[in-house]
């Protein structure tokens, strides 16, 4: 039997108002069956300052509730100011940090840290190098198929592996802000229009099909990844941590559903039905896990969760 699985909550990727975010984390601290919580602005450095005043009290409350708190760095670091935020995190010896750019991993070398999903870890060679550098948990890129997860699961040694099992898939990063562009604004004078879309701005094809979601400089999937049905297999492969990306739904309830399945308490089909009822933002997908289009949903009957 694999060690106890951890349910984790990735950083909020969207520009939620700071107070909303604070209250969200308070509720997670008080109510959610979540083991690890990642905090911090990953997408756009212009947003970083809003939530910073709340970080100490939020981290404290989460820690008091027995949750491991990890501070996530920016994913795309292009200037000195952005680099400085990473340096500040890396310089705080008592902080646990998730590096979302290789520069973060370099600064954290020699002490335990987490490698975030925006660092490209596709194979055992890369995993070994990063673990040698001090990574004790590696969050894998969302596009890895089960075959790769299996190999990495065997190669990870003492390091934990984390896989995203719920939420929109983070597909791309850019220097350009598409939220601003969509509103005919320049990035420098963006008026923080991204705040209007708590799950990203819907992007449809010309024929009206949901396709992508824009979150400032980030592009995500329209569909929400759900690997509820794949959880058992993932555990068998040696994946120990399961990431839920925050969306504007009842995340405490979402966490409860995943925890119920992880514990083997709840019936899978029932849990899936409850999740579907709870999350009406967009359809689910699991294609990347099955080595197909990320947007695909491989139906339950076409694969066996144990196989």
């Amino acid at each position, binding site marked *: 039997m694999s060690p106890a699985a951890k349910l984790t909550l990735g950083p909020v990727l969207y520009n939620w108002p700071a107070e909303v975010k604070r209250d969200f984390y308070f509720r997670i601290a008080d109510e959610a069956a979540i083991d690890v919580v990642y905090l911090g602005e990953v997408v756009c450095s212009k947003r970083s300052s809003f939530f910073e005043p709340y970080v100490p009290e939020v981290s404290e409350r989460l820690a008091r509730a027995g949750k491991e708190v990890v501070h996530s760095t920016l994913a795309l670091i292009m200037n000195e100011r952005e680099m400085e935020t990473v340096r500040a995190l890396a310089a705080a010896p008592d902080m646990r940090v998730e590096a979302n750019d290789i520069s973060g991993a*370099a600064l954290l070398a020699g002490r335990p840290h987490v490698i975030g999903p925006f660092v490209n870890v596709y194979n055992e*060679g890369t995993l070994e190098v990063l673990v040698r550098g001090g990574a004790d948990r590696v969050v894998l890129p969302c596009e890895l198929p089960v075959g790769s997860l299996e190999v990495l699961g065997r190669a990870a040694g003492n390091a934990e592996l984390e896989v995203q099992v719920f939420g929109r898939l983070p597909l791309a990063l850019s220097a350009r802000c598409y939220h601003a562009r969509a509103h005919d604004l320049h990035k420098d004078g963006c008026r923080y229009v991204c705040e209007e879309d708590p799950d990203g701005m819907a992007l449809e094809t010309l024929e009206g099909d949901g396709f992508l979601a824009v979150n400032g400089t980030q592009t995500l999937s329209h569909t929400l990844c759900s690997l509820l049905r794949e959880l058992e297999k993932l555990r068998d492969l040696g994946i120990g941590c399961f990431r839920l990306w925050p969306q504007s739904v009842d995340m405490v309830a979402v966490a409860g559903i995943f925890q119920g399945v992880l514990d083997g308490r709840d019936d899978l089909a029932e849990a899936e039905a409850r999740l579907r009822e709870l999350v009406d933002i967009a359809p689910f997908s699991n294609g990347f896990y099955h080595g197909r289009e990320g947007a695909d949903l491989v139906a339950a009957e076409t694969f066996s969760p144990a196989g």
Partner: protein
Amino acid sequence: MSGTPLELVCPAGTPGALRAAVDAGADVVYLGFRDETNARNFPGLNFSRPELRDGLAYAHERGCRIYVAVNTFAAAGNPGPWHRAVDDAAELGADALILADIGLLDYARRRHPETRRHLSVQASASNPTAIAYYHEAFGVQRVVLPRVLTVTEIARLNVQIPVETEVFAFGGMCVMAEGRCTLSAYATGRSPNMNGVCSPASHVRYEQLGGRMVSRLGRFTINEFPDGEPAGYPTLCKGRFVAGGCAGYLFEEPTSLDASTVLPELMAAGVRALKIEGRQRGRAYIAEVVAAFRRAVDAAARGDPVPPLGLGGMTEGLRETTGAYTKTWR
């Protein structure tokens, strides 16, 4: 002002293109093997081992160097093809390897310490700390900068790093940070990072519907063109989508990068080499674009104004942009 000419690094997808690039004045030709180990894994393109050997001979006889791109990310559990690509390129005498995968950089450093290692744009190293890491950990001697930086940022970067920089000067343009984009995999199941293809032809369809042409990638409509409008590839990020009720090119118009107008600034910013995109393009493109940039680079080195290149016909959507090099692009 005058100075050392920028090194002109030119693409080749076939031996014919390689000869065209060498003959047109390339300082360096970069290329890849005919498989998933490089980021232009297109059907009918790229080099066999004997073709690389012949290409190396042709280039070296004419004072031109060859860089081999092994710039996708090795598949978990199957590093063989990537290791062989590195081994063969090094053993055949490639002048540098262009790598992105940390595991592969580590392999190349251990097995072929004498072969120069360049960091591919696919590694998306956009800051001095990241670049210093690749230099210290894997002995990388040059970094190809991601197309996200302005000229000012490049200048600032160059004084802080111990390695040479190479920047894109012309051709197709990623609007996303390279190596950190899975949009195409989301729509097609074929991944730029793992399979070396973006918006692959195998998943492209065109349909004529009434007075408009519709282009699709996988099951998603990427664009449609009413009659009378020029068009481009159905590359996902150059597609037309609807946001907030408005249809438009949300990410980027069909356009090509042309940095020829900022060559003197790039030189002043301390850039060492200019890269032309287009390993998938034909010999005619290579010959024309390389010759034009040869003139431009030489003019810039003499301190002369860079002449207009007249490459409009080679660009996508017949439009050009200086892209991220100017801040207004963002």
